[in-house]
């Protein structure tokens, strides 16, 4: 009796599992990857996507042979794939090659014959000429060293009419452009990034965020007295949270806005020129609960072909977008498993791989692209280069792996349009909800069809006109005869 009951239960359980499995298989695009990757559809729904990146290794200081990293806060990778890690707690910079073999440790430098060290540095940047720029936060200065570690210049707290009397220089992130201007993100500065010229003199602020006013706050301010108002929080622009520069010299920056654009691409004048032609403005997750709030972006990394990635510090996710603002893929998360972090602070690309630096654990997680990720990266690059043939092939491969990737259809459509296959292009543009290109393809298609069938159409029209004319004449004659008949009768 008991045994039979048991077997029944087992049977029931297996049946249930089968049912659940069957129902899941229908909805998930790629259940076998097992990763919690996703994308957003045109309609703003979360749809399953295969994982584009997978964590392969986690490296801590001991494994790397340099002793534990203590509160590391920044990473940088040079074009020849040397990896610079800023070990803030130990006041040093550690340099690895792409295989994570130690090249050297930089913990001091010579200045005017004296040895100097860093004090809790927070940011670093390496120019293509291997000049190292460190935001030496504790010493309130920015240090620029050349490849042999001799000082090129040191930027001390600047004096300027633009700055307050009680201004405190606390540089936390730095970048430099090809003209060797240095852009510094300093704590407590609302006016944008501080720009220093080649000699290290402060020239101006660049790219200030706009002040965003909360309507309810504004109402309260209107209603309160002057004394009350002076006690209230002032409306100040949000601070930037991080920045990066691409090979064309555009600054990509993230800020802590709650609404508004959290990712910006600044040109030399400080105007935001980021293309936002994707289905949604790039800003991390677009679906979130009100308790969680929107993504808090803490790092940005831009690579070739205008592909850029941002790090959501609060959820530990890395989002990657292409130059048009289409969301490509996401990976990471907060947790204790491989590929998850506690306090991620910096992301960098080494070739096609990603490095994510975890401050609290002092670890670097290496993510390698999957087949899907590689194909998508390649497709995006081919498309950016204008290599339509290659892009067509790669995008086709991509949608075979992820049918939910809507912007890929647009890529296919554009190659077909270029080839002159308008009808097929229409189909693909419709799949990707791309009205502009659909219209373009449609106009060409319409012209083609009309031209092909012009003789038939024209003949048809002429025949109809003649038929109508004859019909009218006959009808009138008939009517006339009837009227005559009526008149005779009466």
């Amino acid at each position, binding site marked *: 009796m008991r045994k039979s009951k048991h077997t029944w239960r087992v049977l029931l359980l297996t049946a249930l599992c089968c049912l659940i499995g069957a129902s899941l298989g229908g909805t998930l695009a790629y259940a076998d990857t097992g990763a919690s990757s996703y994308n957003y559809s045109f*309609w703003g729904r979360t749809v399953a996507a295969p994982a584009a990146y997978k964590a392969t290794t986690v490296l801590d200081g001991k494994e790397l042979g340099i002793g534990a990293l203590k509160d590391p806060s920044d990473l940088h990778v040079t074009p020849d794939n040397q990896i610079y890690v800023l070990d803030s707690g130990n006041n040093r910079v550690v340099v690895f090659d792409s295989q994570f073999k130690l090249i050297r440790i930089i913990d001091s430098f010579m200045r005017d014959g004296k040895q100097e060290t860093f004090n809790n540095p927070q940011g670093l940047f390496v120019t293509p000429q291997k000049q190292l720029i460190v935001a030496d936060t504790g010493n309130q200065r920015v240090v620029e060293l050349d490849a042999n570690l001799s000082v090129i210049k040191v930027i001390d707290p600047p004096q300027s009419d633009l700055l307050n009397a009680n201004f405190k220089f606390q540089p936390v992130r730095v970048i430099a452009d090809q003209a060797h201007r240095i852009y510094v993100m300093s704590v407590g500065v609302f006016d944008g990034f501080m720009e220093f010229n080649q000699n290290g003199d402060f020239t101006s602020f660049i790219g200030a965020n706009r002040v965003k006013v909360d309507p309810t706050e504004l109402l309260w301010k209107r209603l309160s007295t002057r004394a009350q108002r002076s006690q209230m929080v002032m409306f100040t622009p949000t601070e930037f949270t991080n920045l990066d520069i691409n090979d064309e010299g555009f600054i990509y920056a993230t800020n802590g806005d709650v609404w508004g654009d959290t990712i910006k691409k600044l040109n030399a004048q400080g105007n935001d020129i980021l293309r936002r032609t994707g289905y949604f403005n790039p800003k991390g997750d677009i679906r979130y609960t009100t308790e969680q709030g929107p993504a808090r972006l803490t790092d940005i990394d831009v690579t070739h072909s205008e592909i850029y990635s941002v790090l959501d510090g609060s959820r530990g996710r890395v989002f990657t977008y292409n130059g048009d603002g289409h969301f490509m893929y996401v990976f990471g998360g907060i947790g204790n498993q491989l590929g998850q972090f506690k306090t991620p602070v910096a992301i960098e690309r080494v070739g096609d791989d990603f490095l994510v630096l975890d401050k609290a654990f002092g670890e670097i997680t290496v993510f390698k692209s999957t087949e899907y990720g590689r194909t998508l990266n390649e497709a995006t690059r081919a498309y950016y280069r204008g290599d339509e043939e290659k892009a067509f092939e790669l995008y086709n491969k991509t949608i075979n792996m992820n049918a939910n990737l809507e912007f890929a259809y647009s890529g296919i459509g554009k190659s077909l349009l270029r080839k002159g296959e308008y009808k097929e292009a229409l189909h693909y543009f419709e799949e990707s909800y791309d*009205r502009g290109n*659909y*219209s*373009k393809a*449609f*106009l060409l298609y319409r012209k083609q069809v009309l031209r092909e069938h012009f003789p038939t159409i024209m003949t048809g029209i002429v025949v109809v006109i003649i038929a109508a004319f004859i019909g009218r004449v006959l009808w009138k004659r008939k009517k006339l005869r009837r009227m005559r008949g009526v008149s005779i009768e009466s």
Partner: protein
Amino acid sequence: MNRELIKYPFYIIMHPFNGFWDLKYDRTQRNNVIISFVILFLLIITNILSSEYSGFIVNIMNPDDMNSLMEIAYVVVPVLFWCVANWSLTTLMNGEGRFVDIFTSTCFALVPLIVINFPWIWLSKVISLQETAFYYFFSSFAVFWSLFLLFVGNMTIHQYSPSKTIGMILLTVVAMGFIAFICLLFFSLTQQMVSFVNVVYKELALRR
């Protein structure tokens, strides 16, 4: 006779003043009501076809959100609310129209929405993004034409002055809001009562 029935709605939209007068005083009520229902039916069909078959350029629609039954409700409910609200107000305000007059005149006023929008379902398939201006122009033109017919119809069947008609139309819209509010209240209360009874029943049934 049948030919006349088909021609009449077109006559009314072209000559609204004479047309609505005839509607109220000269024509058989039974035919009017039949035509009205046919118009409503055609409008529903037009709307369903339009959301399903309009060209991609003017109609990006999520197939998951498309529901033909809801399309019926989107036509029937506003018309019903309008007629009830209008009747309730005009009976108090010396309007001469009966409920059936209000209903038929409202339905006849909707004819432009069918006549103009129906061909555009198919035309919208062969236009480009630049030419959508025509599409939007014609659909708003249809709406304004219908509103004008609604105004003339209301004025004629109630024998109001133009200014009074406008006032009544605005009041009717407010009254429709009230009706909607009361309906929502009613459904929400019913739902709560049902769920209360349900919970009590469950408590008793599951008690051991």
